[in-house]
């Protein structure tokens, strides 16, 4: 009976999907104004969509978890059964267990020490109640019948292979009495308690908003040994794919959002247990709060399985729900076309509570967005964060490279993709600044945000371009440079590649890389290999200059001279007198352009000289020398010279000096802006004059 109902339901869903596919949502052109259709009526039961049965990932590590939230005490009590298969090439003699919440245990953790190096001390004035932790109360190897075989609790020890910080408790190890051979399966049962840090980075609690991530004891990744690092402030995450079956018990009436598909809700007294499952994911995050407003929309595309988009939004942001859906829908459509299909049936967007510090973070099939109470139209808030995190669903979620070591491969591509999609589907966006305690927005309608510079965060990059290089393992980046390298420089690097080869070529490379690498934990080398294949070129020089090096790029036109040539001195024969002579033959003007490389970074660039009659001369310069001179004899003067006129090299930190003209407008511009500035200063004087 139950099975029949389920079958009937599946047929109904398929039919609904078919209808929806015919009437598919076409987001991009009307992305901003798309109505939030397809919402179930208030009080409707959640739509249950069965998870795909066929494994698309190796499903190396699967987790079956029961967890109970005590909101008053801000604690979690959980137990899990981990089923892990050794898919490596050698036997495993031990296990590695991530205990991320211990990063918030005390200020001696590696995480907080690294933050302190960057000048951030978030727990400087914290009370003991603000700290968080995770304590394993029992860990044992389980027999196939479910009984305990070996108790590892006393053997579990904290290790700190990365920095030998004896106080760090974010990584633990236990020795296995019987090694797990390749192909063999190990089952571990772990019970633990955890306490939420108070509204802290990515996870935590504030008021009755709980965001629960990196919350359960989690295995590292095993291949030819364990890849498992301590928790660094710079680093992100790396883990194996598997199936998650998680039952979360929370106060009755509270709304839960989680990775995967909700399978059931069971009330028990004043509590409700929500069961979510999802296969082929490598993490599980969830959130709960009684304050969320829940909205749904279905995304469909011909030939693709529908995706139920669920938005849990804060009441004060409800007016922005359509913009969240539009950005998510456009992301699924564009990224699905550019890279590959989104394979999961659900996507949950969590709009975090104000001050929760959990905004803008990605988890499988779920991410946190983050917006403001007052968000002007034609600003890229919330679109920027929604698209960025949706891009992560493809790169972090599906490709899933080792982010602890190469976060750029996910963050950089996501940033690049975000910027590109905003440019394709959400234009124009204008600069917004906030005043009066950072609350009141002011939009500059005369400053539209540009893709190449603004949404790639060129300005952030150019302020510290040489603090590190992208290739440095992410966790080992100098504190505070992670964003600049993994996000901004990487996005600028990819956009530079797009300008070198066109978007079609880069999109093809990214698409092939995605197809080859999904669910396989690729490395940066895999990406560059695909790039070489698609372009038919060797990128060693590019990798050396842009990826491996911390060199800065700055090319300039040092001088542009265009005048009638003058000859002085002795002629070819001593009989000719010494004299100055203007060569007026044919009225020729000699134009001399001196191009310079001012910084260490080398990149091939074009030099474009434009003459008064509109004629142009384009030169190719390999950009390796410190300077190059180009000379032309023409019947007209030159008007301007530009180095890298198409701005292919977006990493050039000083583009103003890339051009020179013989008709400069700098005085007019400087006068205009200094006078505008003067009005500001006069207004400031008048503002403060009221006190005298």
């Amino acid at each position, binding site marked *: 009976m139950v099975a029949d109902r389920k079958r009937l339901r599946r047929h109904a869903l398929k039919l609904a999907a078919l209808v929806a596919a015919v009437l598919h949502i076409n987001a991009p052109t009307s992305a901003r104004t798309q109505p939030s259709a397809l919402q179930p009526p208030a009080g409707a039961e959640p739509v249950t969509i069965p998870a795909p049965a066929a494994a698309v990932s190796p499903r190396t590590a699967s987790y079956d978890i029961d967890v109970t939230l005590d909101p008053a005490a801000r604690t979690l009590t959980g137990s899990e059964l981990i089923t892990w298969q050794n898919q490596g090439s050698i036997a495993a003699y031990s296990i590695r267990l991530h205990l991320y919440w211990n990063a918030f245990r005390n200020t001696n953790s590696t995480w907080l020490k690294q933050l302190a190096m960057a000048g951030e001390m978030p727990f400087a004035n914290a009370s003991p109640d603000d700290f968080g932790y995770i304590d394993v109360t029992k860990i044992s190897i389980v027999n196939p019948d479910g009984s305990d075989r070996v108790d590892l609790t006393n053997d579990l020890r904290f290790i700190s292979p990365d920095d030998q910080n004896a106080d760090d408790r974010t990584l633990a190890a236990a020795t296995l009495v019987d090694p797990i051979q390749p192909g063999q399966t190990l089952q571990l049962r772990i019970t633990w308690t955890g306490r939420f840090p108070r509204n802290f980075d990515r996870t935590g609690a*504030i008021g009755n908003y709980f965001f629960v991530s990196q919350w359960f004891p989690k295995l590292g990744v095993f291949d030819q040994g364990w890849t498992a690092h301590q928790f660094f402030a710079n680093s992100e995450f790396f883990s194996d794919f598997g199936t998650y079956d998680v039952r979360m018990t929370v106060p009755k009436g509270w709304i839960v959002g989680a990775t995967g598909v909700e399978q059931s809700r069971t009330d028990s007294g004043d509590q409700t247990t929500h069961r979510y499952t999802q296969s082929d994911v490598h993490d599980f995050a969830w959130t709960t709060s009684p304050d969320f407003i829940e909205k749904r929309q279905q995304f469909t595309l011909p030939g693709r399985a529908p995706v139920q988009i669920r938005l849990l939004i804060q009441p004060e942001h409800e007016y922005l729900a359509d913009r969240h859906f539009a950005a998510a829908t456009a992301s699924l459509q564009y990224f699905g076309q550019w890279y590959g299909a989104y394979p999961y049936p659900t996507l949950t967007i969590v709009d975090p509570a104000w001050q929760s510090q959990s905004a803008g973070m990605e988890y499988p099939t779920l991410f946190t967005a983050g917006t403001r109470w007052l968000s002007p139209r034609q600003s890229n808030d919330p679109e920027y964060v929604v698209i960025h995190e949706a891009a992560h669903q493809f790169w972090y979620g599906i490709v899933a490279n080792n982010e602890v070591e190469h976060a750029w491969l996910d963050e950089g591509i996501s940033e690049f993709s975000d910027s590109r999609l905003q440019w394709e589907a959400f234009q124009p966006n204008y600069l917004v600044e906030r005043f009066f305690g950072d609350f009141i927005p002011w939009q500059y309608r005369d400053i539209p945000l540009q893709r190449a*510079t603004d949404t790639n965060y060129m300005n952030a990059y150019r302020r510290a371009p040489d603090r590190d290089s992208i290739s440095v393992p992410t966790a080992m980046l100098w504190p505070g440079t992670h964003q600049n390298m993994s996000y901004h420089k990487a996005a600028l690097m990819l956009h530079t590649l797009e300008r070198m080869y066109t978007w079609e070529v880069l999109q093809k490379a990214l698409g092939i890389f995605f197809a080859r690498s999904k669910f396989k934990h690729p490395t940066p080398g895999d990406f560059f290999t695909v790039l070489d294949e698609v372009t038919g070129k060797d990128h060693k020089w590019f990798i050396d200059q842009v990826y491996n090096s911390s060199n800065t790029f700055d090319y300039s036109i040092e001088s542009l001279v265009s005048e009638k040539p003058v000859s002085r001195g002795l002629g070819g024969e001593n009989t000719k007198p010494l004299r100055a002579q203007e060569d007026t033959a044919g009225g020729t003007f000699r134009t001399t352009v001196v191009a310079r490389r001012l910084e260490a970074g080398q990149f091939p660039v074009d030099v474009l000289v434009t003459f008064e009659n509109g004629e142009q001369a384009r030169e190719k310069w390999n950009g390796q020398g410190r300077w190059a001179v180009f000379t032309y004899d023409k019947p007209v003067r030159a008007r301007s010279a530009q180095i890298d006129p198409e701005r292919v090299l977006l990493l050039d930190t000083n583009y*103003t000096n890339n051009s020179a003209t013989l008709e400069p407008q700098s005085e007019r511009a400087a006068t205009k802006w200094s006078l505008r500035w003067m009005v*500001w200063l006069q207004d400031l004087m008048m503002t403060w004059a009221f006190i*005298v």
Partner: protein
Amino acid sequence: MLSSFLDGVNRVKNAPALVLGVWLSTLLLALPLAIVLQQMLGEHLGASLAAQAAADGVNYDWWNEFLAQTSGLGATFVPSIIGFAAVMNNIATVADKPQIPTVIGFVVIAFQVVSLFLAGGILDRLARDRALGAGAFFSACGVYFVRFMRLGVMMAVAYWALFGPYHSWLFDALYPALIADITVERTAFFIRLALYAAFAVPLFAANMLFDYAKIRAVVEDRRSMIGAVAASWRFIRRQPLVVSGLYATNALVFLLVIGLYYLLAPDGRADTLAFAIGQFYIVLRVIVRLLFAASQTALFQGRLAHAGYVARPIAKWPDSPAAEAIGPR
């Protein structure tokens, strides 16, 4: 109260030279720094093609590049100098007390010193409500400047207490404590708004106290500034509603002026017109400032039942001792 306000309007209307003089003083103080900035911008743009875009509109990429490479004065050249954002930003400097670059701080203080110097002449002119000539005006400025410097010490202490410990307590200690567990941004904003009010009330009270102290010093030719402050306090205490009502009326005019600028303020694409509108707005701000002084003076003179009375004789530039020796006695 309304009659005092209208009287103040008439007094300002009858004193265009005052408007011109104060406006010119803002211009003359700002101009040297504007010239320095003009040179900095010109040097950075050089002969580049970026200048064309900067001249015709907002070249935000160049702007950011300039900001990344500059410091000091140059660092104040930010987008919030454009149009109405400048007003928001500048009012926010009072409300939120962000760090003002030293060089700009000096100019602001210099203008306050100039304003304090001019205050005696301005109040004398507004109290008499008739033209006195430059000699008498500057003579009054000189006579009261020393007294107002003494008053300035008291003002400095009061405003330091308000902008220093009190502001810090409100916004660096109380505000974070109040919003520590708030998860709704709108709620936090209204809490901040309440704290702005808590800051504004004593600020405006101090402002009124010192305004009337200066007025009493001029109108009654008071030498003791402590006495002037005490007299101001007595005046305000006797008619708090009228005094604060008049202050609020003037504040309303201020809001109307910035509202007008909100409508007229040109964006970054405009050139000469933007400067002209900007100066027009500054003139209006000067008028509002004078309106405060004029209407408060009118109120004080009216309420003390000796309207038009100014105790001190018209000041004149003294002749030289030699001229005095041969002149009529």
